[in-house]
C-alpha cells in the first residue's frame, strides 16, 4: 500500500449498488437544517417585497457599492492568493535561512483583527503620527507641502485586508504542499525542468483546491468586513447593508442585500468547483516514507525568499504589534487589571467550546456527505457552511430572532403543564456558541472537507470489505488521517471567535464581556489609545492557539 496514486476524477463517488446506511443522511439533515436555519432566514427575506427601497438604492448608491466591493474582492483575492501560495511554497519546499521561524511566524497576522490593524496603521500614518512628523521635521516641510499616500482609501483597505487574511491561504496551501507526495514531486522534477516548472505544473494544480478554499475564506471575510471599510470611508455592499438597516431602519431590505451577497458568493464557489472538475487529481497518498527534501537556494535567491516571506510578517504583525505595545505602555490608564483577566477568560472559554463544536459538526457534515453524496446532502451541507459570507450583525440578529421564536414556542408548549421557563436560548452561552457555529462553520468545514478529499476512497472500500461500518471507519481510518486538518479547523475557528464582535455583542448573556467587546467599547467611541491595552491582549490571546496548534499541525504532518 505504499505510495500509490490512483488517478480518479474528483469528486469521487461511492461505488453504486451498495446498501447505504440512512443514519448519516439523517444526522447531516438534522444538524445542517438547524445550523442553516438563520442563513435560510436571511435568504427567506428575498420573498418579502421591498420594491420602493430597492428603487431608491438602485438609483443612488447601489452602483458605487457594487464597484467598490468588486474592486475590494479582486484586490484581496489576488493579493491573498499570491502571498499565501508563494510563502507557503517557499517555506515548505525551499531551504533558506530563517525558514523554520517563518514557517509559523507567517501565521501570526491571524491574531490581529483587521479593524485593529486599520486603527494602528491610521494612527501611525496620520498627519500627527510619528512617520509624517519625522518627515516634516527632517525636511523642514509644513502641512500641504508634500504628498503622502492616504491609508484611508480603497487601496489602503485592500492592503490591510490582504495582510489580515493571507494566512487563511497560507495555512491551507501549506498543508496541501506538505501532504504532496515526495515521489510524485521527484518524478515531476525529472520530467519537468527544475523546481519552478515542477511548481507550476504539478504542485500548484495539486494544491489548487486548498488554495481556493483559503481564498474563498479570505474573500468571504472581506465581503462581510465592516469595521475596516467603515473606518476608511470606503462604501461597500456591507456598509450599505448596515446603512440601510441602521440609517433607514429597513431591516428586511438590509437582509435582502445580505441575501444577494450570499447568492453571489454561492455562485462564485460553484463556478470554482465546476472549473476544478476538469482537473485530474490524484487522491490519497498514504504515506511519505522519506522526509521531504527541500530545494537549497543560491544566496541571492535565498535572500529574496527570506524577504518575500518576512515582509508580510513584518507588516502584518511585527510593526503593528510594536506600535500597539508602545501605545499601551504610554497610556497611563492601562494596567493588566482583574477585569481584563475576566474578559480573557470569557474569550478563551468561548473560543475553546466554539472550536470544538465547529469541528464536530464539520466532521459530521463532511463525512456524511462522503458516505452518502446525494445532491441534496451536498447542497445542504454547503448552505449550512455559508455563514461566513453574511455580515456579522445580520446573521447574529437572525440567530436572535430564531431563538426568540423557539423560546416563545417552548413556553407556549409548556404553558398547559404550568411550565414557562422563560428564555432558555436567547442570551445564553449555549446560544452564543451556536451563533459562532453558524458564522464560522465555513472555515472548519472547508478544512475538514479538503482533508477528506485527500483520503483515498479505496481506503473506504478496504474498510468496508473488512466489515467495518461507516462510524467505525470514521474512527479507525478517517479521523486519524484527518488529524492535521481537524487541528487546522480548530485553529481557524478559535482565532476567529477571539476576534468576533457582532454576534458576541448581541447574543451574549448579561454582564458577559470578552476582550473583543472591551476593545470595541473603547474604539467605537474613538478612544483608540485607551483601547490599545485590550487590543494587545486580544492579539496575545489569539497567539496562543496560533502557536500551539500550528506546531501540533506540523508535528502531525511530520508523522504522516
Amino acid at each position: 500500500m505504499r505510495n500509490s496514486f490512483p488517478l480518479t476524477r474528483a469528486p469521487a463517488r461511492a461505488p453504486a449498488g451498495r446498501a447505504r446506511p440512512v443514519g448519516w443522511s439523517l444526522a447531516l439533515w438534522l444538524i445542517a437544517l438547524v445550523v442553516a436555519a438563520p442563513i435560510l432566514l436571511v435568504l427567506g427575506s428575498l420573498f418579502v417585497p421591498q420594491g420602493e427601497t430597492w428603487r431608491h438604492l438602485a438609483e443612488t448608491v447601489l452602483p458605487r457599492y457594487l464597484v467598490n466591493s468588486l474592486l475590494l474582492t479582486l484586490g484581496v483575492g489576488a493579493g491573498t492568493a499570491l502571498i499565501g501560495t508563494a510563502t507557503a511554497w517557499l517555506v515548505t519546499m525551499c531551504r533558506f535561512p530563517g525558514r523554520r521561524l517563518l514557517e509559523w511566524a507567517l501565521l501570526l497576522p491571524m491574531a490581529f483583527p483587521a479593524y485593529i490593524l486599520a486603527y494602528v496603521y491610521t494612527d501611525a500614518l496620520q498627519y500627527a503620527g510619528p512617520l509624517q512628523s519625522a518627515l516634516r521635521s527632517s525636511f523642514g516641510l509644513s502641512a500641504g507641502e508634500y504628498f503622502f499616500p492616504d491609508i484611508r482609501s480603497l487601496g489602503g483597505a485592500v492592503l490591510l485586508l490582504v495582510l489580515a487574511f493571507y494566512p487563511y491561504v497560507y495555512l491551507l496551501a501549506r498543508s496541501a504542499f506538505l501532504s504532496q507526495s515526495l515521489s510524485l514531486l521527484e518524478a515531476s522534477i525529472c520530467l519537468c525542468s527544475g523546481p519552478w516548472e515542477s511548481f507550476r505544473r504539478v504542485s500548484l494544480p495539486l494544491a489548487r483546491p486548498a488554495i481556493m478554499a483559503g481564498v474563498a475564506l479570505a474573500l468571504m471575510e472581506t465581503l462581510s468586513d465592516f469595521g475596516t471599510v467603515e473606518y476608511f470611508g470606503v462604501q461597500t455592499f456591507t456598509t450599505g447593508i448596515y446603512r440601510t438597516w441602521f440609517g433607514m431602519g429597513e431591516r428586511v431590505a438590509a437582509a435582502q442585500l445580505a441575501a444577494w451577497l450570499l447568492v453571489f458568493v454561492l455562485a462564485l464557489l460553484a463556478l470554482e468547483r465546476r472549473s476544478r472538475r476538469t482537473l485530474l487529481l490524484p487522491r490519497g497518498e498514504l504515506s511519505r516514507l522519506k522526509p521531504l527534501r527541500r530545494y537549497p537556494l543560491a544566496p541571492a535567491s535565498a535572500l529574496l525568499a527570506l524577504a518575500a516571506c518576512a515582509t508580510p510578517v513584518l507588516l502584518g504583525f511585527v510593526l503593528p504589534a510594536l506600535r500597539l505595545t508602545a501605545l499601551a505602555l504610554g497610556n497611563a490608564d492601562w494596567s493588566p487589571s482583574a477585569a481584563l483577566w475576566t474578559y480573557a477568560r470569557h474569550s478563551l472559554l468561548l473560543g475553546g467550546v466554539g472550536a470544538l463544536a465547529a469541528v464536530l459538526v464539520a466532521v459530521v457534515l463532511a463525512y456524511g456527505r462522503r458516505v452518502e453524496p446525494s445532491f441534496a446532502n451536498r447542497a445542504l451541507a454547503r448552505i449550512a457552511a455559508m455563514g461566513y459570507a453574511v455580515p456579522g450583525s445580520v446573521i447574529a440578529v437572525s440567530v436572535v430572532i430564531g431563538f426568540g421564536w423557539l423560546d416563545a414556542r417552548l413556553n407556549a408548549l409548556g404553558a398547559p403543564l404550568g411550565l414557562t421557563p422563560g428564555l432558555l436560548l436567547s442570551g445564553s452561552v449555549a446560544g452564543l456558541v451556536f451563533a459562532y457555529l453558524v458564522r464560522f462553520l465555513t472555515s472548519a468545514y472547508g478544512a475538514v472537507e479538503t482533508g477528506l478529499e485527500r483520503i483515498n476512497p479505496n481506503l473506504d472500500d478496504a474498510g468496508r470489505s473488512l466489515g467495518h461500518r461507516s462510524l467505525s471507519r470514521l474512527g479507525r481510518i478517517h479521523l486519524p488521517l484527518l488529524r492535521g486538518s481537524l487541528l487546522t479547523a480548530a485553529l481557524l475557528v478559535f482565532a476567529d471567535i477571539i476576534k468576533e464582535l457582532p454576534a458576541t455583542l448581541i447574543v451574549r448573556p448579561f454582564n458577559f464581556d470578552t476582550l473583543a467587546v472591551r476593545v470595541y467599547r473603547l474604539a467605537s467611541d474613538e478612544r483608540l489609545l485607551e483601547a490599545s491595552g485590550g487590543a494587545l491582549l486580544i492579539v496575545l490571546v489569539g497567539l496562543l492557539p496560533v502557536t500551539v496548534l500550528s506546531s501540533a499541525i506540523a508535528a502531525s504532518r511530520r508523522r504522516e
Partner: protein
Amino acid sequence: MTRFLALRSAACLLACALALGFPFALAQDATRGVVNVYSARHYDSDAALFGAFTEATGIAVNLIEAEADELIERIRSEGANSPADLIITVDAGRLWRAQEAGLLEAVDSAALEAAIPASLRHPEGLWFGLAKRARVIVYDREKVDAGELSSYLDLADPKWQGRICIRSSSNVYNQSLLAAMIAHYGAAEAEAWAQGLVNNLARAPQGGDTDQIKAVVAGECDLAVVNDYYLARLLADAASGDPQDPASAEVAERIGLFFPNQDAEGVHVNISGAALVAGAPNRENAVALLEYLATPAAQALFAEGSYEYPVVAGAEADPIVTGFGAFEEDALNLSALGENSAEAVRIMDRVGWP
C-alpha cells in the same frame, strides 16, 4: 506514544479554556432586586454609576451593551419573555424607533418631569434624555475668522468650497443633524443644503469626528462639523501635562469652537437617553434607576465621563466643556429626529454624501 501528541495538545487547550471559563457559571447568582439594562452607551463611568446605584439601593444592575438597533431587534424577538427593563441609547432617533416598534412603556414620574426639560423628553414619558451634546463647528483660527461663521445653512455657501471636513453620512450624528434641518426647513431645502455642503467638502469623508478635528490641524480643511465632546477630550488630553495623543497639543493651540445657529433656531443637540421597556419584569427598579440617573449627583458623573452636558439644572459639566461658553440650543422636540432620519438618509444618498 507520540501518536496522539497533537490531539492531546488540542484537548489540553480546550480543557484549559473550559477550566478558565467555568467559574463564570457559578458566579451567576441573583440578588433579590435587579434591573436589566440594554445599553448602547459604552463608558466606564456608566459602570461606576451603576455600581453607585447598587450601593445606594441594593438593586443589582445587569448590563448588555450593543448597538441600539440590534438591542431593539433583540427585545422585539424576545417578546413577552424579554428580561429587558431599560434601554439606553446615544441618539434620540433610536429611542423613537423603539417607540415606533411598540417596545416602550410610559413612565409617569413627577421627579423626572421636574428635572428634565420638556424638549429633551417624550411628551408622554415614553423616553427621557439624560445627557446632551451639541454638534458644533470647529475651525482653524489662522484661516477662519469667527465672524465669517453663522449657521449650518451657511456651510452650503460657495465661499466654503473645498474647505469643509465632515464624517460619513452613515454616522447617526449627521443623520440626526439633517433630520433636524428637514423638521425646520422642509425636505426640499434640506436637500439643497446637503447638496451645497457636499460640493464644499475638502475631501471624501473618512474616519470619525476626532479625525475631522485632526484634519483641520493637518491643513486638509479649514473647518469641520463635529460633536463638541470630541474636542473637549482632545483639549483634556493636551491639558493633562502628559498628552497621549501627539495631535492634541496642536489642537489646543489652533482650533476654535463655534456654536452655529445662535441667531436662528439654536445649535443642534442630541441626547443620550433611556426608556422603560414595555412589560419590564422589574418595572419599579427600572423607574428607580431612571430617577436616580436624573439626580444632580448622578448627572454630573453620567455627563462627566463622556464630556457631555447634564440635562438637569444644578449639575455641572466638565470644566473644559463649560469653558466652551453658554449657547442657545434648538428647542425642537427630539422626536423629530427619529421621524425624519430615514428621509435624511435618502437625501444623503441622492446628493452623493458618502
